[in-house]
């Protein structure tokens, strides 16, 4: 069964450093998303992406964040200058379209980011 994959599974970084989280969505999906879950808190929407553009972003997704689809398979989330409060589990998701209806979002296993 096709699945969303994410790398790395864990990342530890120093405050102020740049990190890039990588995702490979399901191959025929067209819509891509990033969510995050701070330890003990809700899963929160960050950004959605379609047709090489951001479709929607949350208040969390400030200028320190960016997303990119650099090739036909990867979808990345970059945090330019990490803060302590960026420590969280980051989930990538993707969804396809069937008969004009956008389908369910399927999630990857997540990247646990720890900022020291």
């Amino acid at each position, binding site marked *: 069964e096709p699945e969303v994959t994410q790398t790395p599974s864990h990342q530890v970084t120093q405050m102020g450093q740049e990190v890039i989280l990588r995702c490979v969505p399901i191959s025929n999906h067209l819509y891509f*998303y990033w969510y995050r879950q701070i330890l003990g808190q*809700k*899963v*929160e929407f960050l950004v959605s992406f379609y047709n090489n553009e951001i479709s929607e972003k949350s208040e969390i997704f400030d200028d320190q964040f960016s997303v990119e689809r650099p090739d036909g398979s990867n979808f990345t989330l970059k945090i330019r200058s990490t803060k302590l409060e960026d420590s969280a589990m980051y989930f990538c998701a993707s969804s396809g379209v069937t008969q004009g209806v956008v389908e369910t979002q399927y*999630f990857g296993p997540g990247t646990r980011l720890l900022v020291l």
Partner: protein
Amino acid sequence: AQSVTQLGSHVSVSEGALVLLRCNYSSSVPPYLFWYVQYPNQGLQLLLKYTSAATLVKGINGFEAEFNKSQTSFHLRKPSVHISDTAEYFCAVTRSGGYNKLIFGAGTRLAVHP
């Protein structure tokens, strides 16, 4: 605006018992509703979804949920739980049609003991 409230952050039951995990939603437009499960150290897996068809939705692993418009609820139920159902369960809502962000509840941690 949409929101989800999950009553009960922790539920503990014995193996073989019936479990009911509560979810209430708020939405000004027709919603799509989902239950996702997160096993320890894993990602989010879809259990089931409601997208305006039948109000009783059956999912994987013997789970089912019922959409109740008048009570704005989408409670998750399993008649007889197994120890392997120990996990965190998230209810989520989105707008019907098109791609849209998921709004998640805070989650309910289910512990099933022998």
